[in-house]
């Protein structure tokens, strides 16, 4: 009455529906995990030069954070990054990543970093002197399957120097 192909078809279809259901439950389950973290972030400019047509600044940052609560059964990796946000006469908002790090290991999730320098702050407007810069710590959760989310926690503001520092 039921051929092999019909049975195979039914198994594949039902299997697909079940897998999709499990995926949905998995995505929903994230809201039951705590996701509050405490972040302490500071920074200061240590080098600031003009190299036509851009201005370059080296920002020295320190970061303390405990990211252990963010690791649950659907966390494949965390992408951590610190952004500098500022305004110039040419832009409404400018954002530049100054540091990033891929965190895969829960046992290394307690961060106590003192000397973070990775990327330079490069601006093309030539209007960086004396601007307010806000540093923000962000993390991007890459799941094993499901939704990719971004969050920000903890920020620190400072003023760019009015003179270039060599």
């Amino acid at each position, binding site marked *: 009455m039921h051929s092999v192909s019909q049975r195979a078809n039914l198994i594949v279809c039902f299997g697909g529906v079940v897998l999709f259901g499990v995926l949905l439950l998995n995505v929903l389950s994230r809201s039951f995990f705590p996701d509050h973290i405490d972040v302490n972030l500071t920074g200061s400019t240590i080098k600031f030069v003009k190299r036509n047509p851009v201005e370059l600044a080296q920002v020295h940052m320190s970061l303390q954070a405990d990211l252990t609560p963010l690791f649950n059964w659907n966390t494949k990796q965390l992408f951590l*990054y610190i952004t500098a946000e500022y305004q110039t006469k040419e*832009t*409404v908002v400018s*954002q530049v990543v100054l540091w990033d790090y891929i965190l*895969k290991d829960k046992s290394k999730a307690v961060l106590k970093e003192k000397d973070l320098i990775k990327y330079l702050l490069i601006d093309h407007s030539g209007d960086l002197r004396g601007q307010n810069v806000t540093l923000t710590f*962000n993390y991007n959760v*890459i799941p*094993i399957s499901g939704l990719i989310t971004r969050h920000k926690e903890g920020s620190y503001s400072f003023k760019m120097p009015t003179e270039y520092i060599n």
Partner: protein
Amino acid sequence: MNDIIRKINPFSQIPKYQIAQQIVNFGLIVSSALMIWKFLMIVSGSESPIVVVLSGSMRPAFDRGDLLYLNMDDGPFRVGEIVVFKIDGKDIPIVHRILQIHEKPSGDFNILTKGDNNTVDDRGLYAEGQIWLNREHIIGRAKGFLPYVGMVTIVMHDYPQLKILLVGVLALFVLSTRE
């Protein structure tokens, strides 16, 4: 001769109205697949709502054969977002992360991207003389992730004969099975 053909031909035993019904069924499957795709396009606002990752430049986050769901609305672009963009003169879209963004008062923006697994930013990948990405280059931002599912497409892309074979077998299967 006609007898032999009649014996070999799997369709000879089936009445004509049933063959017609199978063809309609086949058309129904194809058109509903198209409808789902177009519906996803409307929901996501992206011209290509589902993409398969083709390179390892975003390892370890995404690997070859992973599936991404893209979407185009909800708010302005921000640094750290994973976007899919297309460079003028290149066919294959690229999935990378935004490293810098400068938004102008007109609402237009300049974006610089970088792959997590690459040591340098993407300026070398852009078209000659291009130093920024703009709105028109961006296809969507990655919102959902499913591992391995896109492997089928990668295998079929690498061996195009397999695609023809698979479509042929499926078509024969749909046309020749009876309820």
